[in-house]
Each structure stands twice: as structure tokens, then as C-alpha cells.
């Protein structure tokens, strides 16, 4: 386990092909003087599971919004390998963010619908995405008929349905109870193993970030910035064995130390 200083992305990049996404000295300033993010550099490679870990106000969500194109950097650049298209991204928010007036299938259809695709033509993809999250039998249900965990699965299915190059997840399991969260963490890794997607995952939880990620980017607040990167080199697939292993505990200790450094304890 190594605790690396920021800017280490360059080292990783040297050993790998060109990054899928790279942030190059990205800063975001609000109202002229509120520095939400300062000089963030990060390379995300195909198949990475990168967690952004840090206290509130450290710019995790700002970074995600910038990557999603919902906001533009004040300075610095965000580069996509081969340019960006609307279907390149899948997004999962902290809340399931489903349309309550639409059925599960219609919710999952949304990214395609906005690209002009008919429901009938997309039905196989919708079914497949729902099958991946184990909800193929709930296509005609309304969100209110589902539990919190099931709603989140629908949200994940919607993010997957266009087969995006990158999935952004902004504390998706934070509002769920511990048991559901535990289960969805396992399911997310199983899903990733099946479809090999690249994920940027925002979280407050050291344990969650260690269990899920291949790399943890630790951020500090005021101004929001990257201060450490922790590589979680345990192999996938990871299951209950990993959760109870000394390796997991060691990674948690390292991530925790980096987080304390970020908080300034």
C-alpha cells in the first residue's frame, strides 16, 4: 500500500495507454472569489474505478459536474479521448432521480428517448439493462412501488442503457440503509465485472471507496483540491473475503490516514 502525493496520475499514465478522460489543472471559481476546485489534474483510464473521497466542500461534486459538462472550468482543460458525445456518460445521483409519472422501463428508456429512439426499438436494450440490475420483472412498475434500493438499481440501469464510456456516480448509496448499501456495493462490482465499465464514484465513506475502487483520489477543502491518491491494488473480483481481509484493513488505514490529512486532523 502506498500513499502517493498528487500529480501521480502522470506516473500511472506512463504505464498505461492514453487516458479515456483527463483533467488538466482544472479550477472552478464561483462568484469571483469562492474557489471550489483548484488545479485538479486526473487521468481516468478505460476500466478504472476511481473514487473521489473527501470532506464536504472539497469539490468532489463540483469536479463531477465539470466532467458531466453541467458547468465549465474557470481554468484548465477537460479532455475526452476522441471527443465527447451525449451518450458517453451515464450518471447516478445521490437520489434515484426517477420520473415518478413514468414506469421503470420508460425511465430507463429516457437517455435513448432524448436521442430520438423509439421505445419498441430500444426495448431489448432496456430489458438487458434492467436484467443486469435484476429488475427485469418490474418493467411496468411505477417508482413508488419500489423500495429505495430498487429505485437506485433503476437509476443504475438508466445510466448503463446507452453503454456509456464513463459512469459518474455521486454518492449513490449514501441515502440507503447499511444492509442495502452493502448489497449494492457487491452488486455494483459484479456489474462492473460483467460489462467492464469505467466509473468515477464520489463518496464520503473510506470503507466503500476501498471496497469498490482501483484508485482513491483524496481531496481537501478550502480550496477544493486533490491532496493524495491511494492505489487499491487488491485484485477483482472482490467479495466478503476481501472485506474481512488484512489487505482490506490496511487499505482502509491508508485511505483513512489520507483523509485525516485532508481534513487537517
Amino acid at each position, binding site marked *: 500500500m502506498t500513499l502517493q502525493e498528487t500529480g501521480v496520475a502522470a506516473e500511472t499514465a506512463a504505464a498505461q495507454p492514453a487516458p479515456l478522460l483527463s483533467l488538466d489543472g482544472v479550477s472552478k471559481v464561483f462568484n469571483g472569489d469562492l474557489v471550489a476546485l483548484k488545479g485538479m489534474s486526473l487521468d481516468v483510464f478505460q476500466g478504472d474505478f476511481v473514487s473521489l473521497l473527501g470532506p464536504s466542500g472539497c469539490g468532489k461534486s463540483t469536479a463531477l459536474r465539470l466532467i458531466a*459538462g453541467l458547468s465549465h472550468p474557470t481554468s484548465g482543460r477537460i479532455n475526452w479521448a476522441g471527443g465527447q458525445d451525449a451518450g458517453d*456518460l451515464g450518471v447516478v445521483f445521490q437520489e434515484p*432521480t426517477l*420520473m*415518478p409519472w413514468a414506469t421503470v422501463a420508460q425511465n430507463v428508456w429516457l437517455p435513448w428517448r*432524448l*436521442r430520438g429512439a423509439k421505445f419498441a426499438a430500444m426495448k431489448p436494450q432496456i430489458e438487458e439493462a434492467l436484467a443486469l440490475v435484476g429488475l427485469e420483472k418490474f418493467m411496468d412498475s411505477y*417508482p413508488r412501488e419500489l423500495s429505495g434500493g430498487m429505485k437506485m438499481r433503476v437509476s443504475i440501469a438508466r445510466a448503463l442503457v446507452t453503454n456509456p464510456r464513463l459512469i459518474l456516480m455521486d454518492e449513490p448509496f449514501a441515502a440507503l440503509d447499511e444492509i442495502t448499501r452493502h448489497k449494492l456495493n457487491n452488486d455494483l462490482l459484479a456489474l462492473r465485472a460483467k460489462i467492464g465499465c469505467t466509473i468515477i464514484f464520489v463518496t464520503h465513506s473510506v470503507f466503500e471507496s476501498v471496497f469498490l475502487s482501483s484508485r482513491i483520489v483524496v481531496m481537501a477543502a478550502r480550496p477544493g483540491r486533490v491532496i493524495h491518491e491511494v492505489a487499491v491494488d487488491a485484485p477483482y473480483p472482490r467479495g466478503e473475503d476481501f472485506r474481512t481481509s488484512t489487505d482490506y484493513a490496511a487499505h482502509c488505514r491508508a485511505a483513512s490516514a489520507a483523509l485525516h490529512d485532508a481534513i487537517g486532523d
Partner: protein
Amino acid sequence: MAIAETAPTAAAAPIIDAEEARRARNRRRERLGRWLMPLIVLVVMIFLWDRICVWNNIPHYILPRPGLVAETLWVDRLILFKALLITLRTTLLALLVAVIGGVGLAVLFTQSRLFEMSFYPYAVILQVTPIVAIAPLIFIYIQSKLIGMLLCAWIVAFFPVLSNTTLGLNSADHNLRDLFSIYGATRWQKLRYLQLPSALPYFLGGLRIAGGLALIGAVVAEYVAGTGGVGSGLAFTILESSYRLNIPRVFAALILIAAMGVVIFTVLSLFSHLLLRKWHESALKREG
């Protein structure tokens, strides 16, 4: 063995505790009470009304007995029904125009902040100015009585639709808005697939208020137009009958106006329930 033998019987019998039984009783009582209680109140009120007339020897041109009002409803049914249709037509047309105008303006307001800033204050001014004060002027400037009446009813009815729909269009979940932006939705797609469905419960709430207000607007307009010598709706019937001291007919027309208001509200509530019953909190039944 004993457990195995008794288990099926225990499973077959529903387990109802005291609290559950009380809740079920309350539910039954409430279902019955919802219809029965107003009916009992109505019967008592009619009885009291009748007795007051008899005990005080009140003449029918001051306060007719309920029986006489019922008789007038039947005897004058052709005149009253014709008048009812005219008032109903004005009300429904005004409601239709209020919906088109209210929703149309709300959409324009949410699409252009400049448009909203320019016109919203005037919509408020139009709403807060009493219609009885504007109506005479309307009938001076507009020759067609139908259009004049429609305009009066529209002024009263359109604001709840406009105000509620604007609120609803602006209340779409901000994460869903972000999601639509990420997926490259056009302005039209955001309006159609996100803002309009989000605004539906708000719009329907406004519509129920507007239904009653359209009737009030139509009645006021008929009063004003009627004083000019034109009009034959229920409000004009009330006016004309009161001049002739035909008070039973005044009551009969009043009852029809009130009944029309109740029917409009009920139909709009039903319409709202049908549209929202599958997904909106307001239309969902809860356990317990």
C-alpha cells in the same frame, strides 16, 4: 405433531389485533359518514327551513317553503334548464380559454424570464381588480355579449391556472434537469418530458379552483350584461325573477347554480384523480 396439526388452522385465520380492528371500523364509519352526514345535515336544514316558514307565517315572496321551490324547479324546468345551459356554456368556454391562456402564458413565462418579468405583474393586477368593477366597462367596449361574458369569466378563472402551472413548471426536480442536460435534451424535450409532467399536479389543482371561479365569473358577467337588457342565463333569471318577486324561481335558479358548481368541482376532481392515481402522492392511498 400438535403444532403441525394446528398450524393450517392458525394460518387460515386472519390475525386482527384490537388496533387493526378499530382502524377497520373507523374506515367503514368514514366511508359511510362521507355521504351520510352531509345528507342528514341537508334533510335537517330543509326541515328547519320549512318549519321556520310555517311557524312564522312567512309569505312565499319573502321566503318560499322548500316544497314550493321544488315545485318551481319542476314547473319552470324548461326555462331553468335553458338558462342553465347558457350559464354552463359560458362557464365551460371560459374555463377552456382559461386553461389555454393560463398554460400558454405559464409556458412562455418559464421559457423567457424577460417575458415573465414584463407581464407577470399585469397578470396579478388583472387578478386582484374586482371583476364587478371591470365588467361594466367590458360591456361598453365589446359589442358581443358572449365574448364580453367570456372575457369576464376568463379574467377571474385564468390566474389560478397560470400561477399554479408556472409554479409546477419551475418545480421540476433539479437532478432530473441536470440529467436532461447531460443527455443533451433540447428545450422542447425538457418542456415535454420533464416540465409539463412535473407541472401536471399543480395545473390540476389550479384547474379545480378555476372551475369554480369560471362559474362565478360567468354569473357576475350575466348580472352585468343582464342589467343592460341582454342575457338569459341563470344569473339573469335570478335578476329578472327578483324584479317580479318570483322568489321561488330565484331559489330554484340558485340551487341550480350551486349544483352546477358542485358538479364542475366533482368532475374536475375525478379528472385529476384519473390522471394522477398511478403516481402522485395526492392520489395514493396509504395503509394505516
